[in-house]
């Protein structure tokens, strides 16, 4: 840039917070001696309306083209000062923040001289960076006002319906030939004990009837490209390839029950899973077979046996099925062999007590001595180790029911690669932040709900479906997305197209593309979040991380203990 640098420095007293320790007038005096600084002043509170006015009038009066404020922390006040610069007609990215409160006056309270020296150094570094700042623009990009929901289980249907009701078009994609997911295989739901079938039918009807939901059954995702606002999803619908353009994507692919092959004498007939039991209950064929004893084994395959995690829903599900058996046939003995038992919340706790009252018997085993199933005289016997008696209790069983955990679908791996979103250690889809962004992926415009994220019951799946839908509706309703101004950029003249940047970018924001000059990296501005890992990885140092460029960081680091004049000489 050929324009003459005119830097203005504003040092804040922050009442006594800074001024009580740091010699602010001395810092102002020092700042005014620095290279390119044409104006320096101090304010009682730079963030007050007088302080902000002072910045604005100084920008005009002294024709400032860079502003440095030394005060508190950019983490709270940077947006305010940037906005002030903008109001005065200065590009907001020509502003630099120096923290002399949290890093100076508050942490060196008993060493005012050192604190003052440090404040001077920090201001000098800030001025050196400011001299190298470049104006940046925030990009905006239009959003196609429709969404794709992958998976038509209960959470996917809920999400699709919710988006449609908000006025946007939804493509609901289901790999199976009908909607409903796991819910389709259940008999009754806890704690209300309504029939899953009836519950599901209302939902299916609502989805089918909604004019803004387009259903794609027997469809699989072939490819996904694009970014928030402009995704292109390629489908294989019954062998026909289709391309759908949407603004954002919800992953609701669900989970499946672990098949307990080789565990507890599992055979699918006498030793079955809870889902197989639900099937039997639905057909009401338990009493027809003269079954007298049912033993359920909790945590079968979970918590260290096959998978490490607790599947969360199996306790309540087993209690429900046990209670239903007992209530329908009081003569059948039903045992639940468990380690811990989760019946959380008041409602579930009451339900558990009802099950006990109905005659379901609970037996606790230690996790390191899980029950064993054996055959004796053609009959099944389950040995449950009793913690107090320190011996096996043999339970005769006509039917053994294994409460197995939910596990990720095998095709999730492929989908995660297509969408460039991560799977966690347990192979379930991994959200951006467990507490702060529970239904977002780190990648903008892709959201998550239901058991694809981990085991959860119907109620939680529905809540998450609503949550994901409301998150997904935000860009659709706004109609545009604005990206960070602080993004990386590639110098094509230096880039050799090696692709190392592409491999480190967690957002798929850098890609190697064919150009007339050969293979070159290209940054998609709206996808970039500005971490700069591509820049520090680039083998030719061809990537510039805006606002944190090599030049700027080096200028800061070199002026940490010497002046800019000494650096230049």
């Amino acid at each position: 840039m050929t324009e003459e640098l005119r830097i203005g420095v504003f040092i804040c007293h922050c009442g006594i917070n800074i001024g009580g320790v740091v010699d602010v007038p001395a810092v102002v005096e020092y700042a005014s001696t620095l290279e390119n600084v044409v104006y320096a002043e101090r304010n009682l509170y730079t963030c007050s309306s007088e302080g902000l006015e002072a910045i604005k009038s100084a920008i005009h009066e002294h024709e400032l083209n860079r502003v440095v404020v030394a005060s508190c922390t950019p983490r709270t006040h940077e947006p305010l000062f940037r906005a002030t610069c903008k109001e005065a007609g200065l590009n907001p990215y020509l502003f630099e923040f120096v923290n002399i409160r949290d890093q100076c006056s508050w942490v060196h309270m008993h060493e005012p001289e050192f604190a003052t020296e440090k404040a001077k150094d920090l201001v000098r570094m800030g001025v050196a960076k400011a001299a190298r700042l470049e104006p940046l623009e925030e990009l905006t990009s239009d959003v196609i006002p429709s969404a794709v929901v992958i998976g038509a289980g209960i959470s996917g249907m809920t999400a699709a319906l919710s988006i449609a009701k908000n006025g946007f078009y939804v493509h609901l994609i289901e790999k199976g030939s009908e909607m409903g997911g796991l819910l389709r295989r259940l008999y009754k739901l806890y704690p209300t004990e309504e029939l899953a079938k009836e519950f599901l039918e209302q939902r299916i009807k609502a989805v089918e009837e909604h004019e803004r939901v387009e259903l794609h059954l027997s469809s699989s995702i072939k490819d996904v490209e694009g970014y928030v606002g402009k995704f292109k999803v390629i489908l294989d619908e019954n062998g026909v390839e289709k391309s759908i353009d949407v603004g954002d994507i919800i992953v609701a692919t669900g989970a499946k029950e672990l098949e307990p092959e080789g565990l507890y004498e599992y055979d699918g007939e006498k030793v079955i899973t809870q889902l197989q039991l639900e099937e039997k209950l639905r057909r009401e064929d338990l009493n027809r077979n003269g079954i007298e004893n049912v033993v359920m084994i909790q945590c079968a395959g979970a918590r260290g046996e096959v998978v490490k995690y607790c599947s969360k829903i199996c306790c309540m599900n087993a209690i429900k099925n046990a209670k239903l058996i007992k209530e329908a046939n009081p003569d059948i003995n039903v045992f639940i062999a468990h380690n811990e038992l989760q019946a959380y919340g008041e409602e579930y706790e009451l339900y558990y007590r009802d099950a006990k009252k109905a005659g379901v018997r609970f037996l606790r085993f230690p996790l390191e001595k899980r029950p064993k199933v054996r055959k004796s005289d053609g009959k099944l016997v389950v040995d449950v180790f009793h913690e107090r008696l320190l011996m096996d209790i043999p339970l005769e069983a006509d039917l053994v029911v294994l409460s197995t955990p939910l596990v990720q679908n095998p095709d999730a791996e492929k989908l995660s690669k297509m969408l460039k979103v991560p799977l966690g250690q347990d192979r379930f889809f991994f959200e951006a932040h467990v507490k702060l962004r529970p239904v977002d992926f780190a990648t903008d415009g892709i959201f998550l709900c239901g058991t694809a994220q981990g085991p959860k019951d119907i109620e939680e799946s529905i809540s998450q479906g609503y949550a994901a839908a409301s998150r997904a509706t935000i860009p659709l309703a706004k109609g545009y997305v604005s990206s960070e101004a602080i993004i990386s950029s590639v110098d094509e003249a230096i880039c050799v197209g090696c692709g190392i940047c592409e491999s480190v970018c967690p957002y798929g924001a850098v890609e190697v593309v064919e150009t007339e000059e050969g293979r070159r990296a290209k940054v998609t501005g709206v996808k970039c979040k500005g971490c700069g890992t591509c820049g520090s990885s680039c083998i030719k140092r061809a990537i510039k991380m805006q606002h944190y460029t090599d030049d700027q960081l080096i200028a800061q680091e070199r002026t940490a203990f010497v002046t800019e004049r000494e650096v230049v000489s």
Partner: protein
Amino acid sequence: MKEEEVKIVGFLCNWCCYAGADLAGVSRFQYPPNMRIIRVMCSGRVDPVIILDTFLWGADGVFIGGCHPGDCHYLQGNYYAEKKIDMAKRLLKKAGVEPGRLRLEWVSASEGERFAGVMKEFTEEIKELGPIKFEKDEMEAACIAAADYSLRILATKEKELLEEGNKYGEVFTRHEMDRLLDDMVREEYEAKRILLKLKRPMSVKEIASELNLKPNVVFRHILDLKRYELIEAHEIRDNTPTYIAKVEEGVE
């Protein structure tokens, strides 16, 4: 600043360590005033070249603060940071500087007290080491080596090679990786030392004796440097060819 005070520069990631430093402030946890903080968005942004340049310009210690593993705001930036800092440490060692002068620490936004504690500890460590001492040529060679592609590839790909393996699915053991890193760092560092020596024309023997390297090793580097057009033959002096660097390769 008094003579005996050591100078430290810190690069802190915006989301965790910088926030932790803010919390130390808000909570008034006192710590020594030796470090000057530079804010970056992610510890993964911190380039080994910049770290070494910071030492070159007189810092006695450099501190990098990132998010705890698994907490990175950008998912994996801190893992890459770890490998890059490891590379910078290896190069520091080559340049005759104690690797302990460079420290990477994970500090979360809620660990204000810990940040102050780490500051006290690190300042003490650096004070014990005293002011930094190095040969300018050696540190410059380390800087240029960090800027060159081979070590940059290795620092970035290390994670992948250890976890997923190379193109042929061969996963490196820690031991193999260390050996590869040692070899590559030594090779690159030697080559850059030679390159810097060749600001004036020199023969293989002269370089070998000045850098205390074997002549055949120097000759191999000379051939490589020539192939990459970084140096050229200068003149024949007493039946011995001399070489000179083509372009002044400065440290940015």
